[in-house]
Each structure stands twice: as structure tokens, then as C-alpha cells.
């Protein structure tokens, strides 16, 4: 395609008062010879836009819009995926942030324009990929969440394949006597369980269910997962087969929970004859009358121990959310079977959020139900099959002992998950041990195996992903997102966890959670159909392409992709799965051979932007600083800094150093260190990287982009040493989007330090 570049400069919103726009037009015309270069006093107005559209109609096919931030007037400056467009931010990051009519501000504006033109010159139009996308959703798990998800997907017009490992569907709910109050006035536990749901499920024409079945293999990517199901040996499918393969578009994982292993709670008496868990009590209640297991005698005095294994660092650090309500419900069972039974509940905090408070008040109102804030110290056998429970009562300020017939441990919820990356690491270690290359390697591999052995054969999805067969999980096993605003964010595109697998929750919330996960699963299918990315770059049509002839099989990209988009062949060559991709560019940043490019974002494009910066010679005393800013947080924060400055009277106080040249990156993780080497070898004095916070409470929208960028800086240090440059010339700062008032100071401090270090000796070489 012949490039016909149109460059448009806006003079409005004080751009015209801050810089000489005519001089900018000259820069564009003399240096880049665009087909068209125009300035306008109100480019986003109807007239301005119709001029641009007219030029596009006359053959201009690439646009540079030098006006406000790309975050402003987005809907106005929209010309479709076939017209590459680069926005040059002359308003928020030039006119509003720097001294008007100053030569440094002018130089900054000129460089911004040069950078934008340099990038646009290499950008290509985007055409969506188009493949046959499956509109079937796989639901893994047939408990309350899975059944809800299957019905929700089917009722939204999607076909469903549901896999349940047990012979029956219904999960825990099917074995319960009653469930928590589900509707106002929230004082009555509901009977009936999920029978009605199961009926609707069984008769739905869109739902196909496989019981006693496991997933042998999940290959492919969103829109085209090929799932191989394997039925237990004692069951056979039509025609005597034991495996079937299904193509599905997305997956809802609803494998639920298991009770915390009570054998770890011997300190609370588990193992003694009349100590049971809440799950065991529920089974007893569902069958009929609650009795003392040792002698089948009716129970008169029962004590519940709350947080049995929950809220304890050595057991489960989290609160299991449902145990208080479960105990209240079971206290009511006891009350129903014996009006005069004494029920003791030893608790730390009664957690009955929202309307459940009404249920708590109802149970609390009974005179023979005793709520005792305290901590159980021991449970011992007493006379006549009784149990003696000692606890520190906070209410009475000292130790107390109660003799009871039955002790119930309110044990918590543990997710039925598999840790994909850990399983992968275990497999790698086994392979390494087999290779037996050196004594140290063998030793190391064996240590890993010992550490990760408990992950052996825990696979659920059996994904054929290079990064492991299941979703990554948090340290406590929940495959939950760490995003408050985006709880369904998944590190495996098209696969969404729901219900008690994702976080401890009751059945009411689990059904709602299933609906949310189905929404995301549907969305993933709809967006894949259009070749578009899912959140956070929703709508993006660009894809990375890999120039494999130059690949050295270093595996960095396949290891670093947070979404497992890249598999490997036997040699280690990356195999790209476009529908798994989130378009963050982390692979592009990771590649030492620079073989990863998007049509509108590439190593070459950013390198060209760096090269477009005019670096004054060493005698001018003008330094130049390159800033790579994360497009999601740091870059908006820079805009906000400009906006704040534009709206105060003492603007000068908030102006920041005009020697900075800011380049937005899709994610700081897409930063390729070659750009830093390029910048330094061209005489740029310092490079500042602005990325999201990383660590446990990471804020990076691509999970670990900023952290990876930080790791890559170790390699940059080698470059610096080779060039004999000070390591302080490169700095990564973690900034939140709300730190916009601090950004001018961060920039000025960095610029000041670079000034102290002195000019880069490579200027002019």
C-alpha cells in the first residue's frame, strides 16, 4: 500500500498560544513530506473533522492528529481500522504542562510531532482475523454453580456441554437438608434444594451432560477449544466409546469446593467419637434425626466451634464466609428436633452480611442458644460419652468449660482447583531428573519434585498450554482475579472460574456468580467472532506476528506471556494462538531478536520514534530524557497532571521539565530493551519508565507486565556497563493513576539527577 500521510494540527485549547503551530507545520512538511499537512483552530469540531474526512476520501490513508490526548475526543477522531492513525498529545502533555512560548516547549512539541509521524509512517491498516468460532460453552462441574451456568448459557441461546466427575449432578447442594434463606424476610431456611433446577437442567434441549466423566485434554484456544472427555471405565457411551471430543468456544470452570481437611484439627477434638464437621452434620440432618454417633442417642447439648480451620495462618488464612450461616441453620435443625436442646456457639465474629442479619437475630433470640465469643483451647472426652470443651470466654474474661453431647466443627471451604503453573513446574522437574545431566541439576530437580509432589495428578482442565494444564491460582488455591473492578479477569482467555472455586461463597452468590461467568464466556465468543480482543483492550483488532526465520528458540516469549497465548514446538519455537492473545505486547518486549510485531505497534515503530527525537549536541546544555509510560495508568496520569495545571492560576509551579519525550506503551511489559540501548547510543541522557505497581497487590492490567519490565532492567545494566554509562540513567518508577499530582515532581527529580550526572557522552556520535 502506498502511504498517503495526512498530518493535522489543532491550535485550540491553548495549543496555539503555547507553541508556534506554523513552525510545527513546517517541521512536518520539510522533514516528512506528508501528502497533506493542515492546521485548524478547532480540529474536533464539525468543520475540522469534515476536512480530515474529505482528505481521506481523496486518498489520504494514514493520519497523524496532533491535538489533545488520545484519551480525549476519541469518538470524534474515529476513522476505522483501515486508516492507521496516531494521536500526538500537544494539549495535556505539552501546552498544559509546560511554559507557553518557550523554546523548550516548542522543541518538545516538534519532537512529539516527529515521533508521531515516524510511527504513523510504519503503521499498517488492521484487518480482523475471521475463523469459524464455536458457539458452545463447556461447563466443568455439575454443582449449584455449574448447573446455574449451564442453564444461564442455554437460556442465552448457546449450546452447553457439562462435565461432572461424579455419577450424579447436584454437588453439595443435593445432599443438604435446607439452604440459606434466599428471599425476604430472610428468616426461613429454604427446603427443596436444587431439585427444580436439576429438572430444568435435565430437560433443556441445549444442554448435553456427561456424568462420571473427566477431561482428558483441552486443546486449542477460545472459539475453538477441542475438549476430549473420558468417561469412567464402568460407564460407556453409545457405541462402546469411552472418549468423545467436543469443540467449544469458551469454558466456565465451576468445580466447587471441598471441606477443609478436619484431620488437621485434632486440637479441636476431631477424631474423638462425637466430634463431627458441619458437612457430616448436614448429611446426618438430611437423612433424618441428628444423633450422637457413638451411641445413636438424641443430642441435648451441642457445641459449634466456628472458624474451625479458617482465619488461622496455619490453616486457612481467609474467612470461609458461609460457616456462620451454616451453623445458624444447623442450630435451627437441632431446635426443630428438640425445642429444649442447648446450643452453644463459640465464635470470633458472627459473619452474617446483608439481610442474613435477620436470620442471625432470629436464631439469637432463642433463650437456649448461647453465643459465646471466645477461643476453644481443647476438647476432651468426658464421662458417659460426653465431651468437655474448654475455651477462653472473652465475655467472662476467663476460661470456661462446657460438657456437651456433640461438638460440630464449622470447617471452611477449600477450592477444588488445580495449580496449572505448579503442575507444569513439577513436570519440568521430572523431565530434568530423567535427563540427569549433572549432580546439581538432579538435586535441584528432586527438591522441586518434593516440594510440588502434592500437585501430581491434580489436573482438571488438562489444557495443552505450554504454561501448564490449568488456570494459575493464588497462593491459597483460588483461581481468583486480583482485580476489584474486574473480578472475572482470567489469565487464560476464554476460561472463567465461578462459584466457590473462585472465592468462598454460598449458593445464592454462586448462582449469581455463574451468571456473571457465563456473560464473560459469551462475550469471549462474540468478540472472537469479530476478531476483537477481550478486556482490557476490548475491540482491539491487532495481533502480534512472529518472524520465525529469525527466532532463536530462547523461549522468553512463551514463558513471559501472562495469558499462556504461546505454545512451543519440540525445539522451542513459539506457536501463537491468536484468540488467547490479549494484545499487550509483552512477547514483543521479551524478544531479544525483535521478531514480534503488531501492524500498529512494533519494536521498529517505537525505535523509529526514539530516533525521531532531535538530540541537541553536548555544547547546548539541553538534556533529553525518554519516558516510556504505561498507556493504562501512567499515561492518563500524565494527562491528568496537565489538566490540573491548566486549571490552577500558579501554573509555573506545576510545570515539569520540558526535556522529557513521552512514548506510551500498551503495557510497560511490552518495552523492548533495545529501545533503551538505541536511546542511549543516540545521546539521550536518561530513560524513565513509568509502570503500574507490581508485587502481591499488583495493579498491572496485564498481571505482570511492569514486573517483567523491571526484571529486564537487569539486562540493561549490562548494556550500560558496556557503554560505560551510569546505571542511574535508567529508572523504573511504579505509579498509580491517582498519583498525577506527584508526577511532575517525579519527573523533575529524575531530570535533576540526570543533570547532576552530566550529559551522555555519546551525543553526536
Amino acid at each position, binding site marked *: 500500500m502506498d502511504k498517503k500521510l495526512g498530518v493535522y494540527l489543532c491550535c*485550540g485549547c491553548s495549543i496555539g498560544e503555547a507553541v508556534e503551530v506554523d513552525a510545527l507545520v513546517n517541521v512536518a512538511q520539510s522533514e516528512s513530506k506528508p501528502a497533506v499537512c493542515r492546521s485548524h483552530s478547532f480540529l474536533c469540531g464539525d468543520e475540522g473533522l469534515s476536512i480530515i474526512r474529505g482528505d481521506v476520501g481523496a486518498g489520504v490513508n494514514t493520519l497523524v492528529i496532533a491535538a489533545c490526548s488520545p484519551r480525549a475526543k476519541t469518538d470524534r477522531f474515529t476513522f476505522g481500522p483501515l486508516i492507521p492513525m496516531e494521536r500526538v498529545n500537544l494539549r495535556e502533555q505539552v501546552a498544559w504542562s509546560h511554559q507557553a512560548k518557550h523554546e523548550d516547549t516548542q522543541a518538545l512539541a516538534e519532537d512529539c510531532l516527529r515521533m508521531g509521524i515516524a510511527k504513523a509512517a510504519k503503521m499498517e491498516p488492521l484487518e480482523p482475523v475471521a475463523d469459524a468460532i464455536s458457539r458452545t460453552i463447556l461447563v466443568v462441574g455439575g454443582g449449584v454453580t455449574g448447573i446455574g451456568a449451564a442453564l444461564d448459557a442455554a437460556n442465552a441461546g448457546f449450546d452447553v456441554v457439562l462435565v461432572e466427575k461424579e455419577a450424579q449432578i447436584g454437588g453439595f447442594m443435593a445432599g443438604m437438608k435446607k439452604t440459606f434463606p434466599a428471599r425476604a424476610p430472610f428468616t426461613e431456611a429454604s427446603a427443596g434444594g436444587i431439585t427444580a433446577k436439576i429438572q430444568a437442567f435435565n430437560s433443556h434441549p441445549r444442554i448435553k451432560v456427561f456424568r462420571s466423566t473427566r477431561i482428558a485434554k483441552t486443546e486449542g484456544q477460545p472459539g475453538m477449544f477441542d475438549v476430549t472427555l473420558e468417561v469412567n471405565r464402568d460407564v460407556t457411551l453409545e457405541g462402546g466409546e469411552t472418549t468423545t471430543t467436543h469443540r467449544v468456544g469458551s469454558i466456565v470452570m465451576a468445580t466447587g469446593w471441598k471441606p477443609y481437611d478436619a484431620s488437621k484439627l485434632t486440637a479441636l477434638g476431631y477424631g474423638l467419637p462425637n466430634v463431627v464437621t458441619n458437612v457430616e452434620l448436614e448429611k446426618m440432618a438430611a437423612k433424618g434425626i441428628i444423633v450422637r454417633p457413638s451411641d445413636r442417642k438424641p443430642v441435648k447439648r451441642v457445641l459449634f466451634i466456628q472458624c474451625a480451620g479458617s482465619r488461622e495462618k496455619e490453616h486457612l488464612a481467609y474467612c470461609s464466609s458461609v460457616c456462620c450461616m451454616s451453623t445458624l441453620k444447623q442450630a435451627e435443625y437441632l431446635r426443630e428436633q428438640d425445642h429444649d436442646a442447648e446450643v452453644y456457639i463459640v465464635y470470633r465474629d458472627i459473619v452474617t452480611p446483608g*439481610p442474613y442479619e435477620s436470620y442471625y437475630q432470629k436464631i439469637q433470640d432463642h433463650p437456649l442458644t448461647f453465643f459465646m465469643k471466645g477461643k476453644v483451647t481443647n476438647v476432651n472426652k468426658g464421662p458417659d460419652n460426653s465431651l468437655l470443651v474448654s475455651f477462653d470466654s472473652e465475655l467472662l474474661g476467663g476460661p470456661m468449660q462446657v460438657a456437651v453431647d456433640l461438638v460440630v466443627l464449622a470447617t471452611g471451604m477449600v477450592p477444588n482447583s488445580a495449580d496449572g503453573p505448579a503442575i507444569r513446574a513439577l513436570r519440568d522437574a521430572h523431565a530434568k531428573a530423567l535427563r540427569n545431566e549433572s549432580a546439581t541439576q538432579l538435586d535441584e530437580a528432586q527438591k522441586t519434585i518434593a516440594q510440588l509432589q502434592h500437585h501430581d495428578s491434580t489436573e482438571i482442565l488438562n489444557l495443552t498450554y505450554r504454561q501448564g494444564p490449568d488456570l494459575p491460582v493464588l497462593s491459597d488455591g483460588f483461581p481468583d482475579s486480583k482485580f476489584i473492578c474486574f473480578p472475572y479477569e482470567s489469565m487464560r482467555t476464554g476460561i472463567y472460574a465461578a462459584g466457590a472455586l473462585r472465592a468462598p461463597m454460598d449458593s445464592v452468590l454462586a448462582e449469581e456468580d455463574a451468571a456473571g461467568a457465563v*456473560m464473560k464466556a*459469551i*462475550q469471549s465468543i462474540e468478540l472472537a467472532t469479530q476478531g476483537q480482543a477481550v478486556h482490557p483492550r476490548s475491540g482491539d483488532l491487532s495481533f502480534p506476528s512472529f518472524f520465525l526465520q529469525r527466532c532463536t528458540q530462547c523461549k522468553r516469549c512463551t514463558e513471559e506471556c501472562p495469558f499462556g497465548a504461546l505454545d512451543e514446538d519440540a525445539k522451542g519455537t513459539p506457536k501463537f494462538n491468536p484468540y488467547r492473545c490479549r494484545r499487550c505486547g509483552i512477547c514483543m518486549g521479551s524478544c531479544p531478536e525483535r521478531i514480534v510485531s503488531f501492524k500498529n505497534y512494533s519494536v521498529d515503530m517505537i525505535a523509529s520514534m526514539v530516533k525521531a527525537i532531535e538530540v541537541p549536541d553536548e555544547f547546548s546544555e539541553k538534556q533529553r530524557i525518554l519516558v516510556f509510560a504505561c498507556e493504562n495508568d501512567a499515561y492518563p496520569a500524565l494527562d491528568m497532571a496537565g*489538566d490540573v495545571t491548566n486549571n490552577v492560576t500558579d501554573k509555573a509551579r506545576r510545570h515539569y521539565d520540558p526535556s522529557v519525550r513521552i512514548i506510551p506503551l500498551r503495557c510497560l511489559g511490552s518495552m523492548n530493551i533495545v529501545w533503551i540501548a538505541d536511546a542511549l547510543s543516540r545521546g539521550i541522557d536518561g530513560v524513565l519508565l513509568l509502570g503500574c*505497581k507490581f508485587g502481591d497487590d499488583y495493579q498491572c492490567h496485564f498481571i505482570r507486565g511492569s514486573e517483567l519490565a523491571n526484571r529486564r532492567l537487569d539486562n540493561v545494566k549490562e548494556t550500560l556497563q558496556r557503554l560505560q554509562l551510569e546505571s542511574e540513567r535508567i529508572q523504573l518508577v511504579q505509579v498509580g493513576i491517582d498519583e498525577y499530582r506527584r508526577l511532575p515532581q517525579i519527573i523533575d527529580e529524575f531530570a535533576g539527577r540526570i543533570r547532576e550526572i552530566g550529559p551522555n557522552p555519546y551525543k553526536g556520535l
Partner: protein
Amino acid sequence: MPDTDVINNRQTPILVIGGGIAGLTAAIELAEAGRHVILIEKSAYLGGRVAASNLYFPKLCPPSCGLEINFKRLRTNPRVTVLTLAELEKLTGASGDYEATIKIAPRYVTDACTLCGACQDACPAEIADEFNFGLTRTKAIHTRRPAAFPAAYVVNRFACPTGCNACADACTYDAIKLDQVETHRTYRVFSVVVATGWAPYDAAKLDNLGFGKCANVVTNVVMERLASTEGPTGGKILRPSDGKPPKSVAFVQCAGSRDRKHLPYCSTVCCSASLKQTTYVRKSCPEANVTIFYIDLRTAGHLQEFADKVCADDAIELVKGKVGKIEEDPQTKALRVTVEDTISGKKTTRNFDLVVLAAGIVPRTANLPPSLSLDEFGFVASNASVGIFSAGCVKRPAEVSATVRDATGAALKALQVAVGVTQHG
């Protein structure tokens, strides 16, 4: 963008009422699943209560981070029509075929606005900034910083001096139309998501707790503004009476909640919110001690780990007890807090420089479709048979991530109605 119509008649929208995090989420999720959406918001800007919050628990990350992504998703998605200053006036019809009439109050500023700020500089009329609970001043023509959606100013016409045209004269872009009038628009919609959110319980009704009478008794929602860099104190926690950093701060939990005389339910979020605000105090005033008076500390799920982390600080004391009375020392404006310690059973009195009332969540249910009924607490459950689904705090008290989860699910239910119509209707 090519918009492949998989099912006929996809253009009919779904109505989402409320532009807070719940409504915003429902609208965007529907649009990204290929549906058209009318999103109406009563105020001039989207973002609701989260936009007024300083940080989210438990990550202590800024709400503007997620709003930025969501606003970007909105800006680049042509399927959502956002109407601000808009309320549902009438809803007729039935599930799958509703006619919704929307009343839109004049903004007096068109989408030609560039947020350049010239109008605000020219405006002679100062008003109290409601966004900061009247603790700061703004102009009659104003916007919301740092990020406003829609990116346009708004005029409070009641504050304009008679005949004043200063803002319109200052606008280079002809974006200010002071003669705009109220308009009404009617849309055919498949289904409705109600996400009208919540309001804090009116702390003045808790007459024993001194709100409105004692200068240094504030609510948790005001605390969010005090902690914000755009708030009245630039992010410093200072005593309203004298602008000095407090040395002792008390949080009074269940201020209105779990109280049959006020809100019989638990507002769910206040425990975690107070723990979060404790970190504001400790960061802004490292000298200050914090006491949290509570009945039960309700930090379900992973919030427990947040509570453990915050409470590991020696300067924080948890006292199980119900605050019965708060009085002000007329000279020092210090607060005498009388507490019944449920553990010792004794009534004790302690002095604090600042008291924060953890006010509960009250659902906002004005102007809802008549086919919805309120439960005895005033919350609204979804009604699938009429194709109207509630989401977020209008349904039950919930923290942000639970609200987003719920709104995503409600979006699915609303979508099912649309699918039902297009496949069978």
C-alpha cells in the same frame, strides 16, 4: 468497526438505569457481547459512588484506575448510548418489548466541549461543591476532576447570576447553550437493568452520635473525600474544627446498621471500609492512634487477610462494644465517646479528636418501574418474569467487586430476555 449481526433485531437496546460501577459494568459487558444499550445516569457524570472513593479495599488501589479502563471501553464502543442528567420517566409494555421514556435535564453544555476550562475561569458564580459534600467551592459551570465522563462541563443554572452569559462568551467552541430545556426521549427496549445504587444512612438520625452537632464527627463517605487529593484537605486527614491532624481517631461501626430502630440489616462493607480508612489515618497522621468500636468484625473471604494485615499495627485497637453517646467538649471540640464494652460489660468514656461514623448503605429506589417491589428493608430483587433485573447495592449491600460480579450476572439475565425475543418472538 464491523458489527456482525448474529441474531436479527440486535439493534433494540437494553436499558440500564444508573451510571455507577454496577450500571457501568452491566452496560459495557452487554455492549461487548454485541448488544445495544441505553445507559441513563441521574447526575451529570458517570462513576457514582466509586468515583467519590479514594481507594478500594483490600488492595488500596485507586478507583480511577478501573474507571479509566471502563471509560475507555465506553469511548471505543459505539453500542452504548450514555444519557446523563437522565431519569426514567415512564416504562410501559412487558418483558421483551418495553417502551421507556427518559427525561433529560439540560446540561447547558454540548459535546463540542473540550474541557479547555475557559468557561470556568470566566464564571463569576461560586457554589458549594456537592461532590465534596460542600466542603469545597466550585463554579456554577464546573466539571469533575481528574477524569470526567462525559468529558464536558455542566452548569448549575440556579447559581447563575441573572442575565449572566460569561461562560458562553468565553467558550471558543460554541459548546455552551444556556437556553437548553428539558427533553424527553422514548426508546423501545428489551429489558431493564436497575443499578441505582445506594446512599449513606442519614447520620443525623442517629441523634446520640452527634453528627451535625459535633464538628469533629464525620461519616465514612466524608472520610473518602478527606483522604482524596481532590478533596477539601488535599488528601490530609485533618479535624474539621481546627484543621489540625488528629492524635486519636475512633471508628464507630454499625452506625445505623444492625439496629432495629434504623437499618435492621448489616451493610456488609463498613467493617472493611473502616479498616481501609484506618490506613488513611495512619498514613496521613503517623502519630495518631485508632480505635474501632465494633459488634462483629465482618471481613468475609479474602478480606480477612486484609483485616489481619491492617490490625497488625500496634496503633490500632479493636474494642467490641456499642457506642451509646458522643458529646463534644465545647472548648477543645474533643469528643467524649461513651461505650458499653460488651466484653467487660462496663460503660466507659474515652476522648477522641475525631470520630468516624461507619454509616450504612441505604438502597436508592426513587423512580423505579412500578412492577418492581421493595422488600421489607427497601432493597429490590430481580423480577425475571417482567424482564427487570436489579444489580449492585440496590439489591443488597455489597463491596465493589461483588457489585461488579452481580452486575455482570444481571447483564446476562437482561441479555437472555433479548435472545428470547429474537429467537422466538
